C-alpha cells in the first residue's frame, strides 16, 4: 500500500508537470498577453514598461519556471481583471462547483445503478428496451439544451423552480438534475453490461444453486463484483461532469468555477484560466486516485505494485 501511494505520487507530479507545460504554452503562444492588459491609449514605451512589470520581457522558458515555482506555493499570479490573486477567486467559487458536482453525481448514481441492474436482470424485455433507449437519448442530448428545456418547463411555465443563480437552496435542483441525467445515462449503460458479465459467472450460479434469495445473490454476489467497472466509468464520468458543468453553470448562472472560467476566457484573463485549468486537472487526477484506493477496498485480490 505504501509503495502504491508513493508510485502514485510520482505519477501525479509527472502528469501535473505535463499539464502545466501544456497549459502554460497554449495560453502564452496564443497571443501577446500584454495587448490584453494595456489600454488602447498606451504608448509603445508605456507598453514596454508594463511588459517589464508583469515579467513578460523575460524568455519564455524562464517565465515558465517562475510560473511553476510560484504555483507550487499556491501563487498563480493576479487576475488581470479583478486585480486579486487568481487562487482567491478560484477558492471562492470552488464550494459551489463541488456542491453541484456532488449533487449531480448523487442523482446520477441513485438513478443509474438500480436501472442498470433492472435492465440486466430483465434482459431483452420491454423494460430493458425502454431503459436502454432512455440512456441512449440521455447520452445524445446536449446537456445545456436539457438545462434550457428544464428552465422552460419548470421555471417559465410551471413557475416552480428558480432558473438562475444560487440565492436559495431550491436553485441547485435544475442544474444538478441537468448534469445528473447525463451522468445517469452513461452510467446505467455501464452498470447493465457489467451486471450481465457478472451474472454469467460461476460464483453467481453457485450462489443461486445454494438456494439463496434473488436479493442476496444480486446485492452480495453480483453487484459487488460489478462495482469495479462501474466505479472506473464513474471516475471517468467525473471528468465529463467537470467539463459539462462549465457549460451548465453558465446556462444557470451558477456561481461556480465553470462560470468563472467562461467569464475569464471571454475577457482573456489568462492567469485565472491558467490556474483554473490546472485546478481541473488536479481534481480529476485526485478523484481517479481515490477510485484506485476504493478498488483495493472492494477487491482484495487487486494488489498494486
Amino acid at each position, binding site marked *: 500500500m505504501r509503495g502504491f501511494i508513493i508510485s502514485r505520487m510520482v505519477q501525479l507530479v509527472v502528469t501535473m508537470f505535463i499539464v502545466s507545460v501544456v497549459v502554460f504554452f497554449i495560453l502564452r503562444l496564443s497571443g501577446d498577453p500584454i495587448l490584453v492588459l494595456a489600454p488602447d491609449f498606451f504608448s509603445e514605451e508605456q507598453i514596454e514598461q508594463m511588459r517589464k512589470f508583469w515579467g513578460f520581457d523575460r524568455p519564455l522558458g524562464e517565465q515558465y519556471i517562475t510560473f511553476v515555482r510560484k504555483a507550487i506555493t499556491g501563487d498563480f499570479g493576479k487576475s488581470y481583471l479583478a486585480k486579486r490573486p487568481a487562487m482567491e477567486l478560484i477558492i471562492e467559487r470552488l464550494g459551489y462547483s463541488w456542491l453541484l458536482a456532488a449533487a449531480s453525481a448523487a442523482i446520477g448514481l441513485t438513478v443509474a445503478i438500480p436501472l442498470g441492474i433492472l435492465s440486466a436482470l430483465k434482459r431483452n424485455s420491454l423494460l430493458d428496451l425502454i431503459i436502454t433507449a432512455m440512456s441512449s437519448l440521455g447520452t445524445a442530448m446536449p446537456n445545456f439544451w436539457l438545462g434550457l428545456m428544464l428552465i422552460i418547463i419548470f421555471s417559465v411555465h410551471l413557475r416552480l423552480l428558480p432558473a438562475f443563480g444560487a440565492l436559495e437552496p431550491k436553485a441547485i435542483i435544475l442544474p444538478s438534475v441537468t448534469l445528473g441525467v447525463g451522468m445517469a445515462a452513461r452510467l446505467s449503460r455501464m452498470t447493465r453490461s457489467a451486471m450481465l458479465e457478472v451474472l454469467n459467472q460461476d460464483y453467481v450460479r453457485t450462489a443461486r444453486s445454494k438456494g439463496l434469495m434473488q436479493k442476496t445473490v444480486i446485492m452480495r454476489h453480483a453487484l459487488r463484483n460489478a462495482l469495479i467497472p462501474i466505479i472506473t466509468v464513474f471516475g471517468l464520468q467525473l471528468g465529463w461532469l467537470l467539463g459539462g458543468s462549465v457549460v451548465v453553470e453558465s446556462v444557470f448562472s451558477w456561481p461556480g468555477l465553470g462560470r468563472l472560467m467562461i467569464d475569464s476566457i471571454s475577457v482573456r484573463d489568462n492567469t485565472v484560466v491558467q490556474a483554473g485549468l490546472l485546478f481541473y*486537472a488536479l481534481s480529476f487526477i485526485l478523484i481517479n486516485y481515490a477510485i484506485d484506493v476504493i478498488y483495493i477496498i472492494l477487491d482484495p485480490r487487486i494488489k498494486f505494485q
Partner: protein
Amino acid sequence: MESQSNQLSQAATIAERRAETAVLPARRSAPLRILAILAQSPVGFAGSLIVTAVVVLAFIGPVISPHDPLNRNIRARFKPPGFVDESGALYSLGNDQLGRDILSRIIAGSRVSVLVGVVSVLISGTIGVIYGLISGFVGGIVDTVLMRIVDGLLAIPFIILVIAISGVVGAGLSTLILILGFTGWITYARVIRGEVLKVREMEYVIAAYALGQSRRKVMLIHILPNVVSSAIVLAAVQVGVTILAESSLSFLGLGVKPPTVTWGLMLSDGRQYINSAWWMTAFPGIAITITVLGVVFLGDWLRDFLDPNVRGRA
C-alpha cells in the same frame, strides 16, 4: 501432436463454414449486401437512416429548404410553430427574433454539424492513429514519454481544453474545426496503442518478422490494418462528441459566428428569449439530439459488426 492436428482440422472446418456463409451475400451487389446486414440490426438500421438523412440534408438543404434561412421578416417575428403569413407560406417550426424560419435554419445548420463532425474527426483520427501506432510499436522510453503526455492532456476535461483554446485562438468555423481536430486525437492515442500492443504479439506478426520483413513493413502491413477497426468505432463515437462540442462552443459564443447558421448558435439565440419563444430553443436541440443519437447507434452497430468477439453479446 494429435491435439494439434485436431485443432488444425477444426480451424479448417471453421474456415469452410465461413466461406459457405460468405458466399451468400457475396452474390448480391455491394449496396444490397450492406442493406441486408443492416436489416438484421434495428439499431444499426435506425442509426444509418438518421445519419444518411442528415448528410443528405446537408448537401441538398438549399434545394428543399422552405424559406431562405437568412431572410428576415419583421412581421413574422416570434411567430409560433404553424404560423402562416399573408402570402400563405407556412412556417412549420415557427420563427425567431428576426422572423427567420426555424425549419430552414435547422436544415442550414446541418451543414456545419456534418462538416465539423467529419473533418475534425478525420484530422484527429489520423493524428491519433499515427501517435498510438508509434507509441505501441516503438515501445520503451518513447512509449513512456508519449503516454505520459496523453495522461497529462486527458487530465483536462476535453470540453474545457477546447473552450480554453478557442478562447485564446479566437472563433470561426475553420478555426473551430482545427481546434477540435487537434485536440480530439488524445482519445484515439491510448486505445490504438493498447490495440497495437495486443496485435504486436500475434503469431502472424512474429511470422512476418521470421520471414525477414522490415519493421516498417510489419507496422504498416500487418499491424495498422488490424487496429483500423477500433479506430473506426472510436471515430463514430467521436463524431457525436465533436458535434456536441461544436454546439456547446457556438452556444457559449466561442465557436462559429453569425451569419453562419449552426444549431448551437440557434440555441444561444433561443436562450435569450426563453421566457416567450420556447420553439426557438426546443427544435434546434431536438435536431442535435437526433443527429447524435444516429451517430451513437451507428457506432454501436459498427462496434458489434467489426468485432466478432462482441457480436451477439449485449
